[in-house]
């Protein structure tokens, strides 16, 4: 069940250019809003038509601009979970699910099966607006799964949810994905959700797919500035190359060693929890504490390297006990070379 996508589309001043492959795993498209991730899903589903390129699903060409193939959405066997679920408001839960059944003779049995599998018993005759958000999502998933798609597209599945509901729904979606067992594309701008649900991550920025890889590898080395920001790196700054492995950071007023050649790299990034206390390593900095921000389970301490009064503060996150033990007006921290992300614009 491989999905190969290589498409281009221009919409006004926006250019979408994505190329990736996914096979029997969960690939997350991680990007800020307006980066083209939903557009990519729509092109795969056949709701939007790319200008150029090819989309092949499990050997079947869904779209090929050169061979002039453009299958109707009805023939693509793509399960699309929309942001607001798109349940038909004039139909009951059972009728909604029945819409997805392909073998119309078996409608009753299939609907009953799916209602049980998705824990919708007792809600069969309710209209969508009578359901809670979670129930709506389960009904929408049931309607898609009963349709036996070859690939599942999840468009920001939790964006309409309160945070306490998100956790529960995420678990439900995870088990639905596991049962499905084929290729899943998950669109999201939430790095935690993406990390928990996916196997691989593709970073999208301004219509371009910048980085793609196994999720831990992408978090460990996001390669681009937008990748670093999307994976939650808060300390990102431009560098000036001073040597193959020596970078001056004008924003912070410091010069740091890196553990890899800088080459064409333009920025560095340091995750807030990758800043280490003490002077026991390389890249040790004596810093003034500008501000301390209390989080539920940690502190974020904003640091300004000494001797650089104009510098932008560097964020440092550490747990409450650790900060209580060290709390001071000036502290020494180090930014170990192995914790420095080398990023391109």
């Amino acid at each position, binding site marked *: 069940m491989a999905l190969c996508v290589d498409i281009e589309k221009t919409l006004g001043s926006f250019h979408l250019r994505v190329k990736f492959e996914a096979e029997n795993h969960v690939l997350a498209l991680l990007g800020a809003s307006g980066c083209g991730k939903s557009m990519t899903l*729509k092109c795969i*589903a*056949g*709701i939007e038509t790319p200008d150029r390129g090819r989309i092949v699903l499990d050997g079947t060409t869904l779209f090929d601009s050169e061979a002039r193939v453009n299958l*109707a*959405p*009805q*023939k*693509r066997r*793509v*399960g*699309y979970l*929309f942001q*607001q679920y*798109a349940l*038909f*408001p*004039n139909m009951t839960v059972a009728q909604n699910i029945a*819409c*997805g059944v*392909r073998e119309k003779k078996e409608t009753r049995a299939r609907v009953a099966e799916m209602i049980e599998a998705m824990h919708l018993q007792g809600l069969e005759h309710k209209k969508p*607006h009578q359901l809670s958000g979670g129930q709506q999502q389960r009904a929408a998933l049931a*309607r*898609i799964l009963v*349709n036996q798609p070859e690939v599942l597209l999840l468009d920001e599945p939790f964006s309409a949810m309160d945070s306490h509901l998100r956790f529960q729904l995420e678990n439900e979606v995870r088990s639905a994905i596991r049962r499905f067992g084929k290729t899943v594309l998950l669109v999201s701008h939430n790095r935690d959700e993406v990390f928990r649900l996916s196997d691989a991550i593709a970073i999208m920025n301004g219509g371009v797919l910048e980085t793609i890889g196994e999720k831990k590898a992408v978090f460990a080395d996001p390669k681009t500035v937008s990748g670093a920001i999307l994976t939650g790196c808060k300390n990102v700054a431009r560098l000036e190359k001073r040597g193959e492995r020596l970078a001056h950071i004008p924003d912070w007023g410091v010069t740091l060693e890196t553990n890899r050649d800088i080459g064409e790299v333009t920025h560095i990034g340091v995750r807030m929890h990758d800043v280490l206390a003490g002077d026991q390593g390389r890249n040790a900095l004596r810093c003034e504490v500008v501000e301390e921000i209390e989080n539920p389970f940690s502190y974020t301490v904003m640091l300004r390297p000494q001797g650089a009064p104009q510098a932008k503060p560097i964020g440092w996150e550490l747990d409450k006990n650790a900060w209580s033990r060290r709390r001071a007006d000036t502290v020494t921290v180090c930014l170990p070379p192995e914790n420095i992300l080398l990023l391109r614009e």
Partner: protein
Amino acid sequence: MDWFPLINSLRIAGISTVIIFFLGIFAAYYIAKAPRLVKGILDVVLTLPLVLPPTVVGYLLLRVLGPKRIIGAWVLETFGVKLTMTWWSAIFATTVVIFPLMYRTARGAFESFDETLAYAGQTLGLSGTYIFWRIRMPYCRQGILAGTVLAFARALGEYGATSMIAGYTPGRTATISTTVYQLWRTNNDALAFRWVMINMAISAVVLLAVNMLEKKQRAGRRAG
């Protein structure tokens, strides 16, 4: 009292409303998808009958449907049927006059439709026809119903174009509106007053229906 004008008015309004229900909906649906320039031009042309004086509409209709005019002459020659001065001639007039009402309300209703629902239907393998009649139309039904009722009410009251194309022949082409005018002209004030009351009663009921539909639509939106 001769009830012919009432029956005639109701059948003319009824038939033209049925015609306009389908014409208006399909025009609204397809024009909504058209390129912007085409949409702008068609919008003006199709809404024109709403603002033109009915006599101008009647004049234009006579220009094409009259027995010596292009379409009228052809139909007379081919089928031996005169298109003017029969009871159903009025249907041409009412159809043209009420078309914009149906078209406008249907378009408004379609514009409020959440296109994602149609996309969801497509990805589930549902046909375009199914999506249109079972998802889009039910979603927009209150707006479309209100438009239909309004079109019917307007058709019932059509006077100008009707009197020009169907004339006034008692027992043959007379409608409520042409009868009222004729009775007033001939000083039959008592009977004219009765028809006026009948007309007002029907119109009041129809407008009440429109209001109730709109209220229900708003309530439905809130619940949805």
